[in-house]
Every structure is written in C-alpha cells, then in structure tokens.
C-alpha cells in the first residue's frame, strides 16, 4: 500500500485524532499531575508545594473514609456480582419460553443513565419513602437507614451497582457459555457427571478467562462510580458515603482546592492504570493462546 502513503497523506489522516486526543486527554493528564504538586484556589498563580498534597491525604480522614468505602463497594460488588451473573447466565441458558426477552430485560439496566439509576433507587432505598422499607414495614420491620445513615450507604451503593451491571456481566458469561465445545460437555455427561458437577469441574475451569475479564471490567467500573453516590446521598452525611471519585469531585469543584483535588485524581488514575495493565496483559495472553 505504498502508493497511497505519501508523507502528507499520512499526516492528514492522523493529525485530527492526534491533535484532539493530545489536547483533551494527554495534556489534561499532565496538567493534573503538575497541579497535584501545587496549592491553587482558582486565582493567582499556583504555588509549588512538592508532595505536600499527597502527604496531606494521609491525614485526611475523609480521604481514608472514601478509600474505605470504595474498597467496601469493590469487595461486596465482586463477591455478589460474579456468582449472581454467572448463575443467571446458567439459568437463562436453559430452554425457557421467552428466554430471549428475559435476557434483554435483564440487560436493560445497563443502558439507563447512571444518574437516572441513582434517582430510581432513591425511591427504593430512601428510609422514609422508599419501597424497601415500605415492604419491610408490612412484615413489621422497623425502618432501616439504607442510605444517608452512618454505615449502610456503601453497601446500598454496591446493591445499586450490582443491579445496573448484573445483566451486562450475565451477557458476557452467556456469550462465553455459547462458545463451550458441546463434545466436552457430552463426554462428561456420559461419564456420569451431574449438572452441578459439570458446572464445577468442566464449565468453570474452561471459562477462567471470561471470569477474569468480567472481574477486571467490574473493578474498573467500580472505580468510576460517581453518579450513584451523587444522587443517593451526595456523599453525606459529613462525607461518610463518599467514594474516591465523588470526594475528588467535591474537593475540586465545591471546595475549590484544585491542587489537592488533582492529587486525589492522580491516585484514582494510578489505581485504575494498575487494573488496566492487568487487563492488557490478560488480553495479550489470550491472543497468543
């Protein structure tokens, strides 16, 4: 294809993407990194303070709280989401009348804007007007502070995250199940394996990669949870339900401590990058396999 590869043609083809990407992705990342070493309140010149912002994070109880919440959401979501979505894929793989429609409905929450997901769940989880406490009240259970209390919000956020992702994860597992070679399953069935033994000893080992992919995708998505917290509690009371990202948003745009906010966002990026590198290594391994 040398004939169409004059230098100016190559430049012309590459330039638009390179310019927009460099200006609105690469430059901002460097800009944030630079600002994270400064003290800047939005006016005057940023004052270089070295690693002081990062040191200050260590003493910031709200930062630790938001890190802890993020980890709680991460652990609860993964522990419940992976088995639930895999189980759902196994269930919906059976020949069920209207199965295709059910799969579409289960996937549905994944296309709803996170901000709207948050609003919908306010009406389920709100201690006063929420559906959950209403239903529990029918059984004589006293109202529970699912959101806005001292402890439960991160768990509630996990629940909502699971709701919005379970269909997505199920679809990936379902696709993986369709790719399973039928003869292996047949052979194991002839050897007398029960349904559960097949799943345990044949299906799951064969789908290790799919499990890894779903896990990594879900981990990256947990690090992006922002709208749910924004709608459910706004991070309150007193930052008790903040995630890393929502706390960064608060520090940067409400408190306008730009340097400090950028330090948090650098940390979020580094955590995310570690996960992404794991993902890349994994998909590379898959290609050579």
């Amino acid at each position, binding site marked *: 294809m040398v004939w169409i590869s004059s230098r100016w043609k190559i430049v012309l083809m590459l330039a638009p993407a390179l310019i927009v990407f460099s200006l609105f992705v690469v430059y901002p990342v460097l800009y944030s990194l630079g600002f994270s070493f400064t003290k800047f309140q939005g006016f005057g010149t940023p004052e270089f303070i070295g690693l002081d912002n990062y040191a200050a994070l260590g003493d910031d109880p709200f930062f630790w709280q938001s890190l802890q919440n993020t980890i709680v959401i991460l652990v609860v979501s993964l522990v419940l989401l992976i088995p639930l979505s895999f189980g759902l894929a196994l269930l919906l793989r059976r020949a069920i009348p209207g199965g295709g429609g059910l799969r579409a409905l289960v996937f549905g929450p994944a296309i*709803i804007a996170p901000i709207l997901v948050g609003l919908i769940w306010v009406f389920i989880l709100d201690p006063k007007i929420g559906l959950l406490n209403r239903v529990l009240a029918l059984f004589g259970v006293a109202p529970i502070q699912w959101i806005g209390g001292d402890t439960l919000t991160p768990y509630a956020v996990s629940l909502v995250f699971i709701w919005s992702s379970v269909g997505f994860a199920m679809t990936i597992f379902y696709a993986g199940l369709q790719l399973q070679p039928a003869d292996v399953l047949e052979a194991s069935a002839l050897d007398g394996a029960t349904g559960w033994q097949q799943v345990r000893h044949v299906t799951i080992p064969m789908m290790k990669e799919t499990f890894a992919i779903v896990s990594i995708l879900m981990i990256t998505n947990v690090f992006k949870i922002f709208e749910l917290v924004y709608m459910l509690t706004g991070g309150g009371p007193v930052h008790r339900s903040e995630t890393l990202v929502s706390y960064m948003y608060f520090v940067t745009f409400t408190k306008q401590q730009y340097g400090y906010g950028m330090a948090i966002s650098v940390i979020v990026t580094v955590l995310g*990058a570690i996960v992404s590198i794991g993902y890349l290594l994994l998909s590379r391994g898959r290609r050579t396999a």
Partner: protein
Amino acid sequence: MTTAMSDPGLRTPESGPGLRTPADLAHERPAAPRPVAPRRRRRRAAMATGIAAYLVTFLIVLPILWIALLSFQPSDKILSDPFSFAELTLDNYARAITSLPLLRMYGNTLLIAVVSVTVGTAISFTAAFALTRMVFRRRRAQSATRFYLLAGLAVPVYILLFPVYRLDLALGLFGTYGALILPYVAVSIPFNTLLFTGFLREFPNELEEAAIIDGAGLWRVCTSVVLPLMRPVIATILIFNVVYVFNEFPFASILINDPDMVTVSLAVSRFQGQYTVDYGGMMAAATLVLVPQLVIYALFQRQVIAGMTVGAVKG
C-alpha cells in the same frame, strides 16, 4: 439441546416413548449411569427453572416498574398509601411536561451526540487506516503512535474534568456546545482506534490494492472500498459512543453552565432540587426520560447489547 446436555437424566435413549417396551427399559437400566428421572420430575424441574428465571427478571425490572407506578400516584398518596391503586392520575405528567424543557434537553443531547460521535468515528477511522494500512518510513513510529492512542484507554475521565474546564475557558469554548463536544470526541478516540485497528488488522487488503491498481486514490479507497466492509464495526462504535454520550454526566455537570444547554442527564440530576417533595412530578419526569430510552433499546436490542459488550469480548 443445551438443556439436554446440562441434565444427564435426559441423555438416555429417547427414540419415542411408544417404541420402548418394559424389557428395553429393564435392559437399559443397569447401563445408564444414573436412574432415569421420571418424565414428570423432569418437567417439574424445567418448570422450576422457568419460574426462577421469570422471578429473577421480575425482581430486576421491579425498580423501573415501581417508578412507573408512582408516576401515576397523587403525591400525597406516595407518602401515605403507595400500594393503593385507587386514584391513579395523569396530573403528575401534566406538571412534569410543563416544568421540563423536554424538547431542549433532547435537542441539546441529540446535537451533542450526533456531532461528537460522527466526528469521533471519522477521525478515529482515518487514524486507524493510517496506522494499519499506510506505509510509514519508520515502522516504529507507526506502532508507537498506535500505542499512544490506545494508552488513553487507561485514563479515567475524572482526571480530565478540571483541566478540560480550564482548557475550554482558555480556548474560548466555554458556553458553546464545543466545550462538551471536543472532550467527548477525545475520550472516544482510544476505544474507537482499538476496534478499528483490530478489525483492519484481521482483514486482508487485497481489495484495496486492486482498487488502487484500478486507479483509485486514497479518498476513493477509504469511502468506496473500506468503509462499506466495515459496517458492522462502525455500527458497534456508533452505538457504544451514543449510549456513552447520552448517559454522560461528570463532564456535562462541569462544562455546561447555561440552562438553555442542559443535557438529559444534567436535567435529571436536578430533579431532586427542582421537584423537592413533589415525588409524583419527579417520577413522571423520570419516566418521561426513561421511556424513550427503553423504547429505543427495545427496537435495537440485539445491536445495543452487541455494541456495548463488544469491548469486553474483543478486548
């Protein structure tokens, strides 16, 4: 077929019930790995899985149904007696429609989505074509450029919010649609490049070479030969990005200040402040936003699911 495989009870000979004699069955039994489950039990098991599947699906859909139900309840009923269906009303919708700038919300979001997705797809395509099909004088430069664009996959948008806000101010974009369109284009480039280069690499370039020999230039090769072949990838990319832009909130919340320029997500984020205790109005408004999205999803369900999960499956 899959059912049969996952249930060993079904794996025994099934050449039609009428053809088997009791002797046959007696003869088979010792050979079969497990006792044959009676038909009735099998059917009951199938019923149980069916019921379980419908039940789980119902639970997942329930929150959406609840919102839709509340949107027909008078606001005071929502507080006092939400489970009664005695006084369903359309009043909430009347209030929601008059208080929501529906046309504006959708108009703004659609405009931003169409422009940013079109531009993002087009410039990612030309870049991907250059990175896979054109001959660089230094091969290293080619793969390094590809890696540079793909590295963007690891960048969370949150680190971009504040710098992009400053950049929009500095470039004089703030207050225009461009303030939001350009970052949307930029953050779509890495994923688009991943899919486009992935597709082009697996795809032989003989057709293109033939076209060039027949005298086609770069423009003709791209528009008449390559693009038609890439329709499935382009559909995937369009769906993925349109869903992203329609649902995006963090950028919009920072970069849009003008009430006339609100996007759908931005409007929804203000419902709680706007309707405060008018829960009925808030739910009607939420339903008005939800329904069009669900209708479009229902129409293009297959493509949407494929478009949104392809990143995970293709890697």
